[in-house]
């Protein structure tokens, strides 16, 4: 359980600065929190709420809507085995069972050494390559039991470290946008006041509390 580290808080403020409204930075900040701890902690959500000026409940509402934000600790490698129709027909369920047996856990759980989490997921848009799985959202196609075993061996041995960073890592090169290179930030109200574009003021937006 941790709030954002001081370094990440600085980064968070930079990210917030990229948006006309702080609240818009919610999702990037959740990614940042997940990157920091491997999952999104309650403390981090409370911290983000402070940073963007909403309640923690609103942060949780957003965070819990998205499957890719984890609210509980998970393994260094999250393996998503597809069991949706195409994969199922090609052995997705069997693959999942094999994964469960090999790692000694059921879908949704994490191995005691904290290395692997298995999840059964819906279609991951690789139907032509069924059965498919993802490790930290990196695809593996037409996976049979042997392929699964060697994948696990490789991950354990660190042979895939270059390709597959720990769960939560968004990018290994941090993007910094200098102040003078930032996109022109205009709030919808300002844009509407400037007289364009029309769709922005088609509906009257109520004024914002705390906007003074």
């Amino acid at each position, binding site marked *: 359980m941790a709030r954002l580290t001081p370094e990440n808080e600085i980064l968070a403020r930079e990210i917030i600065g990229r948006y006309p409204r702080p609240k818009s930075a919610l999702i990037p900040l959740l990614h940042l929190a997940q990157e920091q701890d491997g999952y999104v902690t*309650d403390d981090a*959500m*409370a911290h983000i709420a402070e940073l963007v000026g*909403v*309640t*923690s*409940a*609103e*942060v*949780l*509402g957003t965070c*819990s*809507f*998205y*499957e890719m934000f984890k609210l509980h600790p998970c393994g260094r490698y999250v393996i998503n085995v597809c069991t949706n129709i195409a994969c199922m027909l090609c052995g997705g369920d069997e693959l999942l069972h094999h994964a469960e047996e090999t790692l000694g856990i059921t879908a949704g759980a994490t191995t005691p050494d904290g290395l692997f989490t298995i999840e059964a997921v819906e279609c991951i848009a690789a139907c032509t390559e069924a059965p498919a799985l993802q490790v930290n959202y990196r695809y593996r196609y037409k996976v049979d039991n042997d392929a699964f075993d060697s994948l696990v061996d490789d991950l354990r041995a660190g042979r895939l470290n270059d390709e597959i960073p720990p769960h939560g890592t968004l990018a290994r090169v941090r993007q910094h946008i200098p102040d003078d290179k930032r996109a022109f930030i205009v709030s919808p109200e300002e844009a509407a006041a400037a007289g364009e574009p029309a769709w922005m003021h088609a509906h009257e937006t*109520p*004024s914002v*509390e*705390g906007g*003074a």
Partner: protein
Amino acid sequence: MTDTSEAPPVDGVPVTIDGVEILAAKGELIIDAAERNGVYIPRFCYHPRMEPVGMCRMCIAEVDTGRGPALQPTCMLECTPGMVVHTDSEVTKKAQEGVLEFLLINHPLDCPVCDKGGECPLQDQAVSHGPGESRFVEEKRHKEKPIPVSDLVLLDRERCILCDRCTRFAKDVAGDPLIHFINRGNNTEVNTFPGEPFASYFSGNTVQICPVGALTSSDYRFKARPWDLEKTESTCTTCAVGCRVSIESSRNEVLRYQGVDIDPVNWGWLCDKGRYNLAALDSESRLRDPLVKGPGGAFEVARWSDALRAAANAIQAGLDAGGPGAVAFLGGARLTNESAYAFTKLAKGVIGTDHVDCQLADGMPAEAVLGLPKATIDDVCAPGGTVLLIGPDLKEELPVLFLRLRHAVLRDGVRLVQLTSVPNGCSSLASVVLQHRPGEAHEVVRALFADIPAGRDGGGVNPQALDQARALLRSAGDPTAILGRQSIAEGAEWVLDAATALLDAAPATRFLTAVRRGNTHGALDMGMAPGLLPGRATLAEGRDWFAPRWPTVPAAAGHDAVGILQAAAAGQIHTLVLLGADPLTDFPDRQLAARALSTVPNLVAVDLYITESVQHASVVLAAAGFGEIDGTTTNLEGRVSVLNQKVTPPGTARADWEIAAELALRLGSDLQVESVDDLRAEMAELAPSWAGVTDELLFSVDAADGVVLPLPTATATEPDAADADAAAAEGQSAAEGEAGESDADTPAATGPVRPGLVSFAGGEPLDPPALDAYSLRLIATRTLYDQGTFTQLTPSLAGLAPGTVLRVHAYDHDRLGVPSGTELRVKTPIGSVRAVVVTDPAVLRGTAVAVFNQPDVPLNELIDATQRVTDVRIEAGDR
């Protein structure tokens, strides 16, 4: 609720609903237009006081806009010309049945154990619009039930149909988005963030508007079935907003209050304090019988005849010792209008004392409340207006007024300029916050309308903010002002000064006076303040009118609360009658109150409880409380509404007015009233501001939302007291015609003139005394929950009093040389308390902010009620 109060649409939109052509208002939603024309479309998520979201699809109907019929949610669709709607076609029915079957898939069969069962839209609409049978044979989902989302509200997640009403209310109406949809799809549930409860002042409203039994009140759960409840409408008197409520009881026990939607006031909402403090009326501590102090100094239960005799003797003893001026009455701002009139008549008309004050130096002078040009809540919230808020934190003191103002600002383009010494819960609504030094609001007001004279600084406000506010006011029409006390560590004079300055600069300004206690306005209307007689007449002007009608009239203007307590402490008051007043807790200056209560030889109390002050009384007369008597009350607008009795008072407790009448009898005078109706008739006859307020009017359908005094016809014909008799007679008969009263042959025709209404004169504003370099000027604010009797005697609310620290500016704190958060001694010339002192960037330099009437820091030890300001010193040396 439908907006039936709205005038029929002038340029309507013709639409056909179920074969009948109707005229909808421009922009009206189909669901509303249909309801207004007698066609009820089922719904769960739609609530007329909130933005539609189209969440539940229950209101779906076949709508043809010229491109062929299609199923549409009627709560999301505005009527357009020529639209054809079928709410009972086969297709519509099939869709509605489908929606209901779908909603019921995961809904538990809890009805027999669910509070909502019997008044549940889901039950009702499953019967009226459902398929009648479920095809779902699988296991339903199960969740832990119930989980508390706050101290007051419980949540059964499996009953929730995800209509978004509670969450919309929390975010859009209350501004406390502490409950939210969590997760997605089939797993979606309403919940709080772990460890952050739904601590909103308005949480109880979600229970009322939840269309199923997912949200329940912890204090009502399993208490009753709806069909066992008896209901009557009344008005909440917990604060002066005067929200309309329904009192619901079973077996002579009040079990809950529900909000009733009236357009001009509460829109159906209640605050949690008003909604849940009913437990106090039923508390163990409630007085059931009168008490008389025995020789040993302990209270003993007495018979009414003995207690009344003892009380009358006490009053007589005062009269004998020092004449009428030796008797004083304190309190009464929680009485009904009728009881307030009865006590005024007893005090001023029978005993002849003018030492009467219904407020405890914590409100506003009667001259301001009654005499300023008045605005209603609707006036203040009128779309596009500009409002000056010079007063308390409405969220803490007048919660539902805060909701109305919040809506006005966020939805109706009202702009708020706040003058305050410390930002508070209303500041986030303000376009401009003008933070000024305590006691200098009038300087700010002047600076808003004219250049700041050389050598002054406009109360110390930020010049940019001032410019913004000026620009805002320049572009606006006549402003309205919400005027009240933001700090009871300062005298009320500052508020008057601000009003004077505002009327000087903008004479067309109208005011909503933010008094706090339930019926302060009504009690003042009934003359419960020094120098006043019933009906907003001054003693000077009204004497001739009341003299022939009352046994006596006070000889001269008396003391206000401060004066009364000072005189009592000085031994000049021999008998003090407390009317539900607890000066030891509520009066700003505890030491003065304590001296007064220990000095005064005879103390009589009329109360519901033995409060700290009542402990000192020799006689205690047990009074009936809210919901136990009939009558009327007057809210802060001057709106009179009807209070109804629902249950009988406990034990032998009696209505206050009866107590007044009995006391009068024992003092040798008959008030000549035998019922609340008699009292009201006399008020309408004698009290100028009540002219025309007959029972026919009050109980008519037109007056369902109450009537604002004075009635327009009454003022129009109100004779100016300075005018000749002819004008008076004319005014009289006009009032007669309107009200259909029978007092045409009263002495009015020949005798003295009915007095005019008091008006606000104001006075030349003074400068506050200089602050010495070692002191900080104290700002004593309030929170909704405090040590007040009603809150403390309601178990579910008692623990919610937040306590207080002393907040100071970092600059002032640095001088103390101790870390923020240290407990220190805080002193004034008259007292000292210990308080944790913290820095707060929002606090102005030279000021210190704390909350009044909290358990840990008794600020009333510090405040000297005879001073216009309270300057404190913080002693860092002595920890």
